[in-house]
């Protein structure tokens, strides 16, 4: 037993030196390779700054080239927003069948209250919302932080009616009790 403890004493010392040296090599490598610096020099590189796809700058309503979006004004994003940053104002207009149909009038987004949790984007059933990469939000007037996300004159993009349509509806019904 005493022999073992002596062996352990010295092997501990050598193991410690070995592991400490390993750590020193890692940090020493970074020290002599300043090219690996990941810091963005922000105001200088503003012109060619590329934000990352998953960066959460602000919530946007995606519009396509025909000024069409997918929002049907269901209000699920408003319900899911934990701090009330989203207000949905809907309108009803008669469609071609003569029935009145709900459309979005104003999708109001209070950037000043948003915590960028992403629940609205995740819960949107028609994938109308997304995160934009814009991050320079500083303004002198607080009113400017309240934005209307649907662009003026934009329309809802009508999905062509497909026979597959009932299928997703079915799964939704199934998943509802689980929630």
């Amino acid at each position, binding site marked *: 037993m005493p022999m073992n403890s002596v062996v352990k004493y010295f092997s501990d*010392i050598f193991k410690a030196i070995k592991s*400490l040296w390993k750590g*020193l090599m890692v*940090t*020493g490598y*970074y*020290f002599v390779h300043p090219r690996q*610096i*990941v*810091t963005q020099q922000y105001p200088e590189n503003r012109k060619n700054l590329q934000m990352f796809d998953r960066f959460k700058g602000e919530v946007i309503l995606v519009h396509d080239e025909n000024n069409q979006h997918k929002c049907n004004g269901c209000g699920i994003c408003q319900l899911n927003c934990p701090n009330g940053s989203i207000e949905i104002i809907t309108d009803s207009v008669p469609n071609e069948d003569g029935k009145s149909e709900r459309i979005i009038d104003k999708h109001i987004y209070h950037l000043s209250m948003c915590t960028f949790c992403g629940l609205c984007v995740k819960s949107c059933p028609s994938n109308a919302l997304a995160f934009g990469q814009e991050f320079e939000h500083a303004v002198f007037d607080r009113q400017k932080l309240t934005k209307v996300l649907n662009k003026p004159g934009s329309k809802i993009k009508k999905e062509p009616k497909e026979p597959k349509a009932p299928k997703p509806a079915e799964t939704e019904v199934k998943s509802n009790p689980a929630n």
Partner: protein
Amino acid sequence: MAFNIYDFSTTTKAVDEWLKATLSPTWAFVTELVIVGLVFLIVYAIVGLYLVYAERKVCAFIQNRVGPNRVGKWGLFQTIADLIKLLMKELVTIKRADKLLFNVAPFIVIIASFMAIAAIPFAKGLHAVDFNIGVFYMMAVSSIGVVGILIAGWSSNSKYSLIGAMRSGAQVVSYELSVGLALLSVVIFSGSMQLSTIIESQANGWWIFKGHLPAIVAFVIFLIASTAEINRGPFDLAEAESELTAGFHTEYSGIKFAFFFLSEFMNMFIVASLAATVFLGGWMPLHIGNLEAFNRVMDFIPPIFWYLGKTVFLIYVIMWFKWTFPRLRIDQLLTLEWKYLLPINLVNILLIAFLVLMGWYFK
């Protein structure tokens, strides 16, 4: 050993004689004191500030960052701006603090490092005092600093400060032993405690080479123990930010805080200088035995650059430690000292004494 290194004592003697010729002896003495004091103050401030800058840059590079780069070219004036900011800050006096001790503590800490810097030989003949017990003096003076830390912790009337100071006390008192014994190994080799004699004894090779294995062990132990003695990471329990906010200087603000901060960095400089002086030959160029041609080439680099190069290298090593290793717990800290460093050091001292007795080292 025939080599021709410029002796700064000729310059200082010339100044001394000129002053004595123009002024009365008393005033000449006073003028000399003022000159030496001013030079040390300026050197202290500049070195301290740029060590802070160096620390931030080294830390940044190790962590893949850029570091300070806004004030001046490469952020060179960042720490000067910081100092100006600290100078203009309010000196907050703590309610129910021991006012006298609270105000005295930063001065004790900074005086300790000032006294230690006086004995450092920067180049041949370039030191304020050359005691015949230089190593002993450095040890004695550098341990005054812990008194200041303890006083600061006690007088702040804050639990964080007190816990930090107590930890620091336990740490410095234990690690002082290892520092002393590690220095003693070179004292045995060179047979002198005078720093200038120790440097002269390294004219044919630095002690870390001449003393082979035992000297290397002593050097490593000195590096570890002195890192602990100056309260730097991984031994910075005294100011463990995550547990004690800032330890003993939590309650200090403005220039009093700057005193603690600067003296901490100056202690690092002093420790690195001492290690360079004792183990790496101080201002002595790299000489290998009797290789005259090689030694002559090395002599072309002025001794002050040799001294600075070694010191900067050791400072970098100490910073490298800080930004690599995680902080130790207080029990791990004391285990490392009392169960590992101290026994190894004692055996090492015995071994060195035996080697010196038998003459089994490179003379």
